[in-house]
């Protein structure tokens, strides 16, 4: 599960940071408004930014040859959008599109990297928060791979009494 209750700063991902760290990070934030249907980034492009969603919903999709774009997850207020900027090869492994009008804090990854290098305690906190988000999404993905609601038996792994 992605931690994303609420919307404004102080909730969701940002709530997990100490006030002082949050303040320093937010000094780098840019308030952006994206209309519904905006392609925010594409698979394979350079991941040089990330966002914390304040309101609205973003769909993460992957291109499937012959099937077009397949949405694999939607995320909402308080969520971190994008973590590919954190580790090499720093390329988006999914694409993102707004489902409805989205307000978000946008962060320049290079500036955040510099801030983390300068303030290592903040860096550790931020990486921990991002790792939690990645962990939540991994758990959610694994749960969905179980095909829980599908037919029980050999094809699916639905509940068996």
């Amino acid at each position, binding site marked *: *599960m992605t931690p994303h209750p609420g919307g404004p700063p102080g909730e969701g991902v940002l709530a997990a940071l100490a006030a002082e760290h949050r303040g320093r990070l937010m000094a780098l934030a840019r308030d952006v408004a994206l209309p519904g249907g905006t392609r925010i980034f594409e698979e394979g492009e350079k991941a040089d930014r990330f966002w914390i969603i304040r309101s609205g919903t973003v769909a993460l999709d992957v291109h499937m040859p012959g099937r077009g774009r397949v949405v694999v997850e939607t995320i*909402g207020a308080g969520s971190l959008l994008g973590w590919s900027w954190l580790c090499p090869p720093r390329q988006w492994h999914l694409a993102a599109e707004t489902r409805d009008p989205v307000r978000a804090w946008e962060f320049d990854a290079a500036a955040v990297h510099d801030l983390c290098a300068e303030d290592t305690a903040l860096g550790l906190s931020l990486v921990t928060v991002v790792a939690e988000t990645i962990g939540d999404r991994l758990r*959610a993905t694994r*749960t969905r791979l179980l*095909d829980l*609601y599908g037919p029980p038996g050999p094809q699916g792994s639905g509940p068996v009494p």
Partner: protein
Amino acid sequence: MTLTPLSYRVVDRRDETHDTVTLVLDPAADALKPFAPGQFAMLYAFGVGEIPVSVSRLADGHRLTHTVRAVGAVSRALCGLRIGGWVGVRGPFGTAWDSAAAHGNDLLVIAGGIGLAPLRPLVDAVMAEPHAFGRLNVLAGSRTPADLLYQDEFPAWEKPFAAVTVDRPANGWTGRVGVVTTLLHEARFTPSDTVAFVCGPEVMMRATARALIHQGVRPDRIRVSLERNMRCATGHCGHCQLGPLLLCRDGPVVGYDQAEPLLTVREL
């Protein structure tokens, strides 16, 4: 009364999804005692067998409504019944969603797949008595949009709050994609004053309960419905045993404080 099935006739049927049917049953003569939300009946498909199925709507009088997903011989036979067909019914069995214990609290009704069926009578009951409760939230997870039950009832549930998420979106689906716990951030509830009613596959109930506890809901305020193979439904045969519980009698609805240690051991 609970040992011998009474004859009920199918007076209405409705295809909910490609593999799920709602049957409305009226007693042929004698009727069973009234059911409470969360309780179940043993439905006997003549010549095939008997399975436990929860009530999915409570009506005045002796009418029973059940929503059945076809997974095997008996459930397929029940789903294949037409209006005028006959079913043997025993019940009511088991514990109920104790909505009275939630009076004055916010409510989370969280369903996965067919788990929405046993929860629907609870939603009906809460909506009939809105002032007795805080805010109602109905959150449902479904495999695909086409597998979602009771689609035409969601607009009424949206008035309090309802949200749906699917594992696999079909073309044209513009709703949420992801596990049901991701809907919690949209729900309107104060964790310390909330009672949650959760029904679905066990892994889903475990993940949901953990997310709720993480957000501050007390384990004893999280109710889950546990399913096990049932035969007698009267607490005698032992088929439904889970640790110290006989789920036909002590369940299916139990508090997560009681369920958690039983759900996380490999075998009992």
